[in-house]
């Protein structure tokens, strides 16, 4: 059985582990650099990217994460995780925040605004549907979500979302990038893939649809040897709470 690491500093890591469990895959919580050695693919979950960056910095995780990405091991970031993986982020807090990088794109934090502008929508996902079957759309939950405002030539767009340009001017985040955005086209990118790096601005872990997780697992298997279950660190496997106490229900509306 393949082992997938889930960065467990803060945020929706329980939800990712629960989604992996549904697919019969063991997700292990990663909190320290040395734990990264035991996994050959990694999910960086949603959460508060500044809080996660601070926690990663306290325990010197950034060098290990960068190395992990550079080795070409499959990495998937959702929401805050997408920000982590981007080479450039706009709309950051004062003083900025450290990024892992690797994904050739510019991500705008809190692109859609505060919680009141958070939303749920049916996204068109042709690539996912062709690989994983199922409906042509995916229920995208956007929570104070980022968006990709610029992507390099090697980046494959997996999904985008139309925006009204006046939505941008209502965002009250004190960023100077606003003006550029208004002139941009009326679509923002919300899911990408570049080689072994995948990023989604929305939260597949909050839905019952596990197609994105299954898509990521296929990426993981293609690129490397199957991890043997003996590689699960003893410490991590005892730490993982086998009781499903951490699984919240999936809300349908």
């Amino acid at each position, binding site marked *: 059985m393949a082992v997938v690491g889930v960065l467990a500093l803060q945020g929706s890591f329980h939800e990712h582990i629960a989604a992996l469990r549904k697919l019969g895959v063991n997700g292990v919580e990663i909190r320290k650099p040395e734990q990264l050695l035991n996994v050959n693919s990694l999910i960086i979950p949603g959460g508060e990217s500044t*809080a996660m960056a601070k926690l990663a910095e306290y325990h010197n995780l950034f060098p290990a994460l960068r190395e992990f990405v550079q080795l070409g091991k499959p990495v998937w970031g959702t929401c805050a995780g997408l920000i982590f993986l981007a080479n450039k982020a706009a709309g950051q807090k004062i*003083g900025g925040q450290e990024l892992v990088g690797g994904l050739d794109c510019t991500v705008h934090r809190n692109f859609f605004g*505060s*919680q*009141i502008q958070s939303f749920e929508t049916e996204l068109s996902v042709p690539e996912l549907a062709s690989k994983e079957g199922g409906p042509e759309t995916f229920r995208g939950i956007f929570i104070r979500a980022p968006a990709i405002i610029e992507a390099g030539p090697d980046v494959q767009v997996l999904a985008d979302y139309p925006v009204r340009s006046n939505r941008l001017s209502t965002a*009250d*985040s004190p960023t100077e990038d606003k003006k550029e955005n208004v002139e941009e086209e009326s679509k923002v990118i919300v899911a990408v893939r570049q080689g072994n790096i995948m990023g989604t601005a929305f939260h597949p872990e909050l839905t019952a649809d596990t197609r994105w997780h299954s898509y990521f697992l296929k990426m993981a298997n293609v690129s490397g040897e199957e991890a043997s279950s003996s590689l699960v660190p003893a410490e991590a496997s005892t730490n993982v709470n086998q009781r499903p106490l951490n*699984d919240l*229900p999936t809300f349908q*509306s």
Partner: protein
Amino acid sequence: MEGSGVVTVYGNGAAITETKKSPFSVKVGLAQMLRGGVIMDVVNAQQARIAEEAGACAVMALERVPADIRAQGGVARMSDPQLIKEIKQAVTIPVMAKARIGHFVEAQILEAIGVDYVDESEVLTLADEDNHINKHNFRIPFVCGCRNLGEALRRVREGAAMIRTKGEAGTGNIVEAVRHVRSVMGDIRVLRNMDDDEVFTFAKKIAAPYDLVMQTKQLGRLPVVHFAAGGVATPADAALMMQLGCDGVFVGSGVFKSGDPAKRARAIVQAVTHYSDPGLLAEISCGLGEAMVGLNLNDSNVERFANRSE
């Protein structure tokens, strides 16, 4: 929403400018993003920056921290919207604000200025002694306090998308928080082992809606994100709450009433992530300076905020 007539009726969405509903999944979603994090009470933009730099996953914008509300007495109300706006400008993390229990207009104001979460809080003076806000009428999500399972599920039925155990705010004393978390978790453990036939009577006993009690039984946990609050003053307190099974912690007076707020804030953030690693907890608990002054709850002069609402 049509035909609401001339009279502005609360409950018809009439007072809320946009009728577009926010799905419950989006409301709970933000709380899920806050899991494993620390939410800190701040009274100005500068403290909000300190909290953000320490790694807080959200801040609670207040005029006075609970310890000061306790000391100064009087009526505690929603903060000045100007203050909340300043704090929103200063940080990029979510900003929460408190509304009085039952004061739905304060909640409407908070929604209008675009805070990310409203805390319908017993720390502020009650506005309605009998009713809580009907939180289904809002697009903004709410967090509410509870002391036991029944209270938690009543709040969820009213539309709360996140629950915090009340503890005793502004005391720096963890004893009530432990009592309330133990009560919720203990009841859930009892419920899990209960025969389905007995759940009806159990729901009646704890005065909670049957469907939510049944859902809790099946999940083995509260159906929404569950944080601890009220009395957390040290990294050890925070880790205790996590080990008891909470999804995260609120720290009120504990950070900014202590000797070295930045350092303590950072230590508490780390303690919540690494709650089950005693070696690391020992390391981060070293040399934090003076903790906030605690209150002994056996003293009858200490008012119990937690008992203000049912």
